[in-house]
């Protein structure tokens, strides 16, 4: 099993969710995060003083999935999350050694 972690732009979350749902992904966990990257931050101005805000809002999406589905899910994610502008984010994949569904205690693929 693998854990796919995607850092995306917040306003892309709905599209990502729909794309994944249609492709049969039944679960995911999302977190509000802040990203620092090539996109750069922005400035805000309070009483004439500029504040450099380096961290911009992003959303992290985590999906545990069977090895076999990884490529397809990554592709779907890439497509749904792409706006083509800098700061669209990253997707990375890490290995998962085991997984348990708390409610039932099931483990392995059936727990996903």
């Amino acid at each position, binding site marked *: 099993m693998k854990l796919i972690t995607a850092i995306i732009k917040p*306003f892309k979350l*709905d599209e990502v969710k729909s794309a994944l749902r249609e492709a049969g992904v039944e679960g995911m966990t999302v977190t509000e995060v*802040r990203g620092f990257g090539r996109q750069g931050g*922005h*400035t*805000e*101005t*309070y009483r004439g003083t500029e504040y450099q*805000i380096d*961290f911009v809002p992003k959303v992290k999406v985590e999906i545990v999935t069977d090895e076999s589905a990884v490529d397809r899910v990554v592709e779907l994610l890439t497509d749904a999350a792409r706006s083509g502008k800098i700061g669209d984010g990253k997707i990375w994949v890490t290995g998962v050694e085991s997984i348990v569904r708390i409610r039932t205690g099931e483990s392995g693929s059936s727990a996903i």
Partner: protein
Amino acid sequence: MEEPVQSGNVAWVLVSAALVLFMTPGLAFFYGGMDRTRNVLNMLMMNFYCVLVIPVLWVLVGYTLSYGPSAVGNDFIGNFDAFMLKGIGIADGGMGLATIAYLGMFAAITPALISGAVADRMKFSAWAIFVPVWSLLVYVPVFKWVFGGWLGQRGSLDFAGGTAIHVNAGIAALAAVLVLGKRRGWPQEGHPPHSMPLVMIGTGILWFGWFGFNAGSALGANGQAAQAFMNTFLAAAAAGLAWVVVEWLRDGHPTNLGVASGIVAGLVAITPAAGFVSGAAPIWIGLIAGVVCCYAVRLKTRFGYDDALDVVGVHFVGGLVGSLLIGFFANPGFFGAGHREGLFYGGNLRLLGEQLLANGVAIVWSFCMTFAIMMALKKTIGVRVEAEAEATGLDLALHSETAYHGGGLH
């Protein structure tokens, strides 16, 4: 016998003016709480901007054109005789200046009402021009016609601005959003209020301030003020109750936003009637407005106009309901004039007819002029922010600010 000015009357008008000033921030919070986090500051600023630019405009030209000495006896519009308050002193014990300040508060909050409709997508530069222009071309004449001008003289009634303010701003909101267009994604994507407590803070302030709005319109601490006060209390309560009951029966849940919306709908509806009805009438007006507006806020999805925070459904519909109900509930005890009884007090259809006419005129004028102003802005500086700004939020794009900076990352 000429009575000396009573300090109690001046005190009451001053207090009422302060209360109405407080309503614009209240409205800002009411709307701002319903908005999304990324646009809340733009919403607050659209509202606060009205109390910056309108007061100056009002004392410069608004007052003299609509309510000043020159406007008396003039059916359509005043002249510039009292430009920048020329000739207005304090020898009258302050009543004149107090009243002008009081009416300035009304002038300020009226365009602010429209901000709820154009939320989330209007350029602030366009809004900055829209507000004073709209105030001069729409608010000032309609206000004049209704209070002391030809519509009022014919016999229509508007106690504290049902026609001149709520119907007027409500229909202007419709015209504005027709020019402006829908928000991207609307109506598929919904946006729940980002802070319901902020909505309720706004609601509390609005109700509190509305006592000044309505009861202050008696321009004295007298019987009519007390009656208007009582009516404002009862209509808001009844409308809130009605809205919540409809929700409970229809949707299965009584909600806070329903309470807030019902209260505001009741306050809007009683505004034109507050000094003219008595007894159980305000309760009936409140109940009717609560039910009608609770359904009217759904018209936008049916007809497809994106009135973001329901200015049409609450202010236009509520104001119209209240204004027409005067034709039924007006209590002759409150004025001498012959034909001004409502149908339920032995009157004929004449008063109702006048109410229809006055509102009809206000609607046509306001809709057309607002549409024209918005089109002119659209063709020149543009009225709509760029797609990117709309997606990422107006606060940052237009105001270089973010509403909240919480937590450990700051």
